[in-house]
């Protein structure tokens, strides 16, 4: 079907030419920061919030907000891609690499499920969460992450579609086997690589 052309379509919203190479297939260039969430925005209280890493690990860990923030603040320049078709280029987040947590807990499984306050889950292979590819973040472009964008603290895995970057994260469970998360059980792709356009189950 590669030769189908839409009558009268010229393309009104192309990314600037020098950025076109950074746009995955089927995505459009968005300057704002839209919101995608499967339910009401939960009200997260940082005073009682903790981040747990458990499951198939040598020593499970639990961190308070002060302890997470105490690990330092790294600036993470990145492009982000949402399965609802927008991509935002040259944005940045502030947070800490998940590697800091892996060093402490020593994972022993090949898969993980991230869980959020409110019950949202998403699954990822450990390969996508290790080696400087994933972060806990609490700042966006220098200001605290707002609740609708997953604040106070969310996961950031910018090389995959944004639903993998669980908002309002509270836990990561390491598993021996893969187990589908919320959108992955509701028709979306298990891995979600935007460069392979892995949006839905059969992609």
């Amino acid at each position: 079907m590669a030769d189908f052309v839409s009558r009268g379509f010229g393309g009104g919203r192309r990314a600037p030419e020098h950025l076109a190479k950074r746009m995955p297939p089927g995505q459009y260039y968005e300057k704002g920061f839209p919101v995608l969430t499967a339910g009401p925005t939960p009200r997260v209280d940082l005073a009682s919030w903790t981040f747990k890493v458990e499951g198939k690990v040598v020593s499970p860990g639990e961190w308070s907000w002060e302890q997470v923030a105490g690990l330092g603040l790294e600036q993470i320049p990145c492009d982000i891609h949402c399965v609802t078709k927008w991509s935002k280029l040259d944005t940045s987040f502030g947070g800490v690499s998940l590697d800091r947590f892996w060093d402490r807990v020593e994972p022993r499984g090949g898969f993980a499920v991230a869980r959020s306050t409110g019950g949202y889950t998403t699954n990822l292979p450990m390969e996508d969460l290790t080696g400087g590819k994933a972060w806990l973040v609490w700042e966006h472009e220098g200001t605290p992450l707002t609740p609708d964008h997953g604040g106070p603290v969310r996961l950031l895995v910018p090389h995959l579609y944004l639903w993998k970057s669980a908002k309002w994260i509270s836990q990561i469970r390491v598993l021996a086997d893969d187990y589908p998360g919320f959108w992955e059980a509701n028709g979306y792709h298990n891995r979600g690589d935007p460069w392979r356009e892995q949006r839905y189950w059969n992609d």
Partner: protein
Amino acid sequence: MERLTPGAWQIATVVGIKQETHSVRSYRLKLAEWVPHLPGQHYDVRLTAPDGYRAQRSYSVASSPLDAGEIELTVDRLPDGEVSAYFHEVLVVGDQIEVRGPFASYFVWRGEEPALLVGGASGIVPLMSMLRHRRLTSPGSAMRLIYSVRTADDVIFADELGEESFITFSRRPPEGWMGHTGRIDAGLVSRAAFGEGVAYVCGSNGFVETASGLLLDAGYGPQQIKTERFGPTS
């Protein structure tokens, strides 16, 4: 020959166009590889330019899955919108357009009862699929709609909104309007809400945030509220 898997791209034909409001039209598409959708699901639309450039967007199905072989997409024209303006300015009956679907099984109505539908502006589209399907399959089941629009000129599907509908005019009500005026608020929610069952909220991000907050305050649990956000608005 390429085998068609569910959700593969296919070429649909525009078989009907209906002007719903000054900025909204419904497009009836005939599909060769039609599968019944669940009310609330969406299709992806893909436009391809002669040089290979492509644009994709998602559009909810407005019709009931009992309309075999066809789907109806209802598109709000955004100023300078790449895909919505293409629908409005270019597409005519007989044209072809690439689509794939139906997708996503979260924001869907499978007969849940009672069901409260809350829509802002074009957010009514997937809710209309639920209303239409209920009318055809289980007209007695408990379903109500809260629908927020700016003015009387912005009411999509006006001739299909019956007693189950609670409309509010956020900008300007029509002359002699006795119902609710202004943005959705706790009073309107309490009049329409069942207090149990499921709520489906769809619209711009701002609308969804406000409406789902009001539902939480009215006693709906977070797991009882399903949301769909259409617009990049923040």
